[in-house]
């Protein structure tokens, strides 16, 4: 039976997909919203700070 990928790997891949899709959507959008485009980064940066609680 094929082993499931570790949760951390799955989370990492999802994070990348969120960032790339946000970036692509904003880059392709006619109404480039800089503020909105930068918000996914805030999610990633905040979530990665768990060790600093």
């Amino acid at each position, binding site marked *: 039976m094929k082993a499931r990928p570790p949760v*951390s790997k799955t*989370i*990492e891949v999802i*994070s*990348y997909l969120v*960032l*790339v899709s*946000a*970036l692509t959507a*904003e*880059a392709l959008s006619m109404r*480039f919203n*800089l*503020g909105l*485009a*930068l*918000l*996914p*980064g*805030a*999610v*990633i*940066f*905040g*979530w*990665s*700070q*768990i*060790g*600093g*609680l």
Partner: protein
Amino acid sequence: MSSTTVGLALGAIGESFVEKVSDGPRLYLIGILSLILALREWKLLQFSIPEFKRQTEKTWAHEFGPEVASAMWGIHIGLGFGTRINHGGFWVLVAIALGFGSPKYGAILMLTYWLARTLPVWVAPTLLDSTSEAMELPGAALLQGRLFERMVGIGLLSTAVIAFVGAARVASLV
């Protein structure tokens, strides 16, 4: 609430000088800062980032009870500057809040950061078997330090790209 206050303050500070520097250079500076910090996450550059080397006080739970302590932890973490800063992404958010010069946007940005930062602590007790295991979550997460470095590195790189794209658009509109 403390995070929105910090965001409002940063935006207000930025607002006071935002008219002195045009949009393009501000965005390029944010992009360059993001790139430098991304290189740090990938260990291609090595330097320390400014931080207070302290964490929230675990003893508050004994002193004030769990509910009051939770609120105090939330406020303390929300300040952003008051606890350890493991990755450079936080400083890019500060630069963005200053650079946009909008208190409202600064508050939204810092609130988003705070929500993402505290979300694992809210969610952990529902996913783990016991409260004691939930308390161990930050330590367990630190074992995945390289994972977070890679994620923040990619986040910083994408932030840099967005800032450069924004700067180019501003230039094309002039």
